[in-house]
């Protein structure tokens, strides 16, 4: 029987964490994601025994995640932009030590303290490695409250499949808005001894060490080569995207997250006017669907990339298109959410107008 509920994005995500059998959540309040910590503080421990701890800072929460994830259990944290900035050193350690865990960034408008309104200014930080060194997170960008829930389960699966941190990159609007969501059934919290994890060294195996330290350059290069190989594997297997009305389109809009839904509305308005527009929504931002976009570039006249920032994902779109067709950009910043009409206007001016 389907379990349908009307929920806020942040609450659906928190509920999904409980249902996915998450063992521990460590977090620190910040708008617009505090509902995650609040919901879990209220619900989680009594229902599944999940640990929920409010840390003294995001630096502490990410390092609690680092410690706990070393045991091989299902661990997560969430925050919003300034808090994610504080976490970057810890995330780099986690990526290098190859610890599975789930991170969530409910992106708000920046830079600086910025605004509590939604933003997408953390794209670079999320997909290009916000901390030091060469590392990658698997980055999933939900566009609906349903996906806020589903990606928690999927995120944990990917994290353990690749021993890699997974980031759900969403924004303040999706975190705060209410939608219908079909909840997945409660999964059992069960503990599996993993051969690399620190659980107390029994006689039967050598000691395990969680570390990202390798003083010899050659050894550190070896670790890097291993990580890069893993990232190539992820690129091969885990690309996720949604192509909406792209096959007969003359123009394509690329956008991720909630903005992709607004662009879908703009595309519908365009089609009413006889302009054939499709929307290509990357769901996995790393790995990025370069090949998919490259193939569509053969079929369309031009592409418009729309984001709530000054133009970040557009760099990856341009890399994908590789000069085949013009790629225009439209962005709103500082927490302003664009509406379908303004996107349609930009589309007509920048793409259609040029083509005529």
């Amino acid at each position, binding site marked *: 029987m389907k379990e349908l509920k009307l929920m806020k994005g942040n609450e659906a995500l928190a509920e999904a964490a409980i249902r996915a059998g998450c063992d521990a959540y460590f977090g620190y309040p910040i708008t617009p994601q505090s509902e995650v910590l609040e919901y879990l503080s209220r619900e989680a421990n009594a229902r599944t025994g999940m640990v929920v701890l409010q*840390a003294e800072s995001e630096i502490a929460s990410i390092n609690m995640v680092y*410690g706990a994830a*070393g045991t091989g259990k299902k661990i997560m944290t969430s925050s919003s932009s300034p808090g994610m900035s504080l976490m970057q050193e810890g995330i780099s350690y986690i990526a290098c030590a190859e610890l599975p865990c789930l991170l969530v960034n409910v992106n708000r408008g920046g830079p600086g303290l910025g605004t509590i309104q939604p933003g997408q200014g953390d794209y670079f930080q999320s997909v290009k490695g916000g901390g030091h060194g060469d590392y990658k997170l698997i980055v999933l960008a939900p566009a609906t409250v349903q996906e806020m829930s589903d990606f928690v389960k999927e995120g944990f699966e990917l994290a353990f499949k690749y021993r890699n941190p997974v980031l759900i990159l969403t924004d303040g609007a999706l975190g705060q808005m209410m939608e219908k969501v079909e909840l997945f059934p409660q999964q059992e919290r069960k503990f599996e001894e993993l051969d690399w994890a620190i659980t107390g060294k029994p006689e039967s195996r050598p000691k395990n060490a969680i570390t990202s330290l390798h003083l010899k350059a050659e050894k550190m290069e070896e670790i890097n080569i291993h990580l890069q190989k893993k990232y190539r594997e992820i690129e091969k297997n885990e690309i996720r995207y949604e192509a909406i009305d792209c096959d007969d389109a003359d123009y394509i809009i690329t956008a991720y997250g909630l903005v992709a839904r607004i662009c879908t509305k703009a595309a519908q308005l365009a089609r009413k006017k006889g302009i054939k527009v499709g929307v290509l929504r990357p769901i996995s931002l790393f790995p990025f669907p370069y090949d998919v976009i490259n193939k569509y570039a053969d079929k369309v006249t031009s592409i418009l990339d729309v984001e709530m920032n000054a133009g970040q994902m557009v760099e990856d779109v341009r890399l994908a298109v590789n000069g085949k067709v013009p790629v225009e950009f439209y962005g709103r910043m500082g927490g302003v959410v664009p509406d379908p009409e303004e996107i349609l206007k930009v589309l007509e001016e920048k793409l259609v107008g040029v083509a005529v």
Partner: protein
Amino acid sequence: MNERALIDDEHYEHTLRAEHTEIIDRENIVYEKPGTLIDIDMHYCPGCGHGVVHRLIAEVIDEMEIQSEVIGVAPVGCSVLAYNYLNIDMSEAAHGRASAAATGIKRVMPEKYVFSYQGDGDLAAIGTGETIHTCNRGENILFLFINNGIYGMTGGQMAPTTLEGMKSTTSPFGRDVATMGAPLKITELIAQLPGTYYVTRQSVHTANNVRKAKKAIRKGFEYQKLNKGTCFIEIVSNCPSNWKMTPIESNHWLNDNMLPFYPLGDIKVPKNGGK
């Protein structure tokens, strides 16, 4: 307390000579490497207190027979490679964040013994927030705090615990309290927190002190089973390399300069004797 007699040169030479006497019968052995201490060369400088404290941890783990139940955390600092020396599951941690990592481990593995092993720069400068809040939450972990009054690993910069007037590469004319602040007695500070159960300051610069420190470490592990709060053991230690002294000089200097400011002994003991 004048313990100079115990650390004089003659005593050390005697110890050294003993090492070279012929191998004695196995049943007569009174001193050997604890099983939990891995038999490889340590990178510590000769005479450094880190190696001694590692040995004590290993001895206590062996004596309590808890090797399979211990998880340690050692952050950046000279002891970051502790996981190469102790035959237990361990995690390295970012500079200052050991107690957060230890909190994470203990919260999801409450049945294990968890300890964090941190230097003074780590615990009392960059990680002060984590230290205070971990103790304030009364996490059931053991802190081993190696206070050598200096940043050892990075080459002898001033630490929060560097004594007034003490020279370091970043206080080349001696620590000036007016501009650099006074040395921080973080152990006294955290003893004020209701979350701490057992707080003590020890040293390992004489054989007698080594014995006392070992007893404290054993208590720290034993108390953890009671789930009564944080145990915190400061070890006043040396850094012969960055203090620019021989090991013996450094132990004398520790005795004469560090200990008057950082007096040894229990600061907070369980009311009922830890029962």
